[in-house]
């Protein structure tokens, strides 16, 4: 294989060399447990403290509002289960959007089994949660509203500030899953006025297995992971010192270089979308064209199935991702695309491309050409293609 092109940055990103270098000593010579009294431990504790201060300062929040977690899934679980448990005296309604990540949807399903009422907010055809959707279902028994800042599949950016305001007017808490947004667009926690916010380091060139749940001072969800005194007794488990340090460094770089990377990645994405739309007929560009993450492009290719496209692209050296049912093993295609009202047969043929700061325009052009070729070959194989081109619309 002559080329290896990575267009799956919403799945994960490579760790920056600068980040790795800061982490490395904490695996070996500075290996102490940050909870130990002795000098080995205190060396780690000091580094974790410094990292926490750095992250808080980069985000404009208080140091004691930062809680280290194992990543996005834990943050989402903690915010949702912790709030439900802590505030069940208030009521039993939880409101989330219908296009949340599985970490949120699966957790909500568990809470439904425990007797909580979960309301799933609809979205527009562009994947937007409208304020009036929330106003219609929220009441004074609502414990928590959770809407992701930006969607992982179609990149739609939600009006979080307005949604949080509505939640607060009814006395409910507001959490946002900012896993896809953090590091790629500005996230001003105080301005958004959210009570909790989840993010994960590996989406912005940091290590995997580490993240943050921001919890506003005064808000006290139940703990999710019981254990020792780590994270001010709110989250047990030996602190992952090298990863905490790596995350702080990665966030520093992401925020330092945000304007530059935003423009660059967006220019790659925009050119890719332009090329694909000009070369390939019968496609749907899923999501909103404006309120969208710079790295995300998501297309449905009619008459063909997503996994076939994905695998052929992979064989051509291009890595991307599919919301297709077939690649995940479930029979239902992407719940996000279905929530936007995309017909199920089109949802089957969807592919997400997510660009990153190390990609080049040459890669974009090569991939658009290969994709055009692959879609054409697969359509020639499809029993749907010719018939739809001809007189009959249905098979």
């Amino acid at each position: 294989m002559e080329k290896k092109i990575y267009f799956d940055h919403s799945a994960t990103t490579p760790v920056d060399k600068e980040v790795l270098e800061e982490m490395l000593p904490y695996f070996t010579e500075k290996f102490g447990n940050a909870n130990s009294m002795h000098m080995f431990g205190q060396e780690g504790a000091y580094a974790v403290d410094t990292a926490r201060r750095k992250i808080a300062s980069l985000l404009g929040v208080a140091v004691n509002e930062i809680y280290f977690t194992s990543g996005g899934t834990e943050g989402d679980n903690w915010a949702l289960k912790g709030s439900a448990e802590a505030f069940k005296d208030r009521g039993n309604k939880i409101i989330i959007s219908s296009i949340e990540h599985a970490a949120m949807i699966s957790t909500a399903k568990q809470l439904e089994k425990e007797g909580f009422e979960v309301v799933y907010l609809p979205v527009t055809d562009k994947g937007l949660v409208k304020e009036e959707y929330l106003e219609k279902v929220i009441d004074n028994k609502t414990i928590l509203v959770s809407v992701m800042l930006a969607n992982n599949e179609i990149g739609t950016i939600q009006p979080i500030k307005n949604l949080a305001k509505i939640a607060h007017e009814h006395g409910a808490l507001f959490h946002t899953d900012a896993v896809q947004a953090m590091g790629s667009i500005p996230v001003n926690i105080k301005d958004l006025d959210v009570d909790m916010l989840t993010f994960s380091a590996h989406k912005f060139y940091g290590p995997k297995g580490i993240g943050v749940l921001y919890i506003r001072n005064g808000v006290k969800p139940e703990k999710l992971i019981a254990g020792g005194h780590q994270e001010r007794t709110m989250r047990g488990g030996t602190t992952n010192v090298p990863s905490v340090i790596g995350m702080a460094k990665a966030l520093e770089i992401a925020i330092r270089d945000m304007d530059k990377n935003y423009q660059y990645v967006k220019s790659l994405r925009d050119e890719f979308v332009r090329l694909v739309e000009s070369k390939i007929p019968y496609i749907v560009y899923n999501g909103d064209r404006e309120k969208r993450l710079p790295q995300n492009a998501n297309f449905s290719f009619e008459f063909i199935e997503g996994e076939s496209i994905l695998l052929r692209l992979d064989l051509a050296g291009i890595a991307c991702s599919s919301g297709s049912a077939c690649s995940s093993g479930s029979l239902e295609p992407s719940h996000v695309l279905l929530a936007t009202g995309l017909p199920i047969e089109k949802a089957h043929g969807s592919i997400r491309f997510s660009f990153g700061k190390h990609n080049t325009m040459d890669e974009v052009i090569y991939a658009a050409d290969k994709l055009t070729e692959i879609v054409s070959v697969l359509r020639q194989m499809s029993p749907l293609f010719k018939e739809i081109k001809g007189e009959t619309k249905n098979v």
Partner: protein
Amino acid sequence: MYNDRVVKEFSNPQNVGEMPDANAVGTVGNATCGDIMKIYMKINENDIIEDVSFQTFGCAAAIATSSVATSMIKGKTVNEALKLTNKQVIDELGGLPPQKLHCSVLAEEAIKAAINDYLTNYKNSKK
């Protein structure tokens, strides 16, 4: 996820395309489920499948099984083709991931549907 044989068959499938002069056509599956397999055959007066082709909307496993299953019945009699099982198709491919086993069933069903079409609409109507 897939073995090399499946990937090879998917990248370079045999017997692809429409067959305008087919006397047996079978379509199974639907777009909502994400799988449609359409098989065309040319069956001669001795009930031998002289030619066979397919068009498939579906995942890599669906395309690979279409390719293998059509190759396996080419030159065979109708009765032999009817005996083809999805298990034989899977064995020929050296195995499929568990969630993809239904694709091989689809191939078996498409072949049966095409032969049924031949028997009801072509052979028997000529008699």
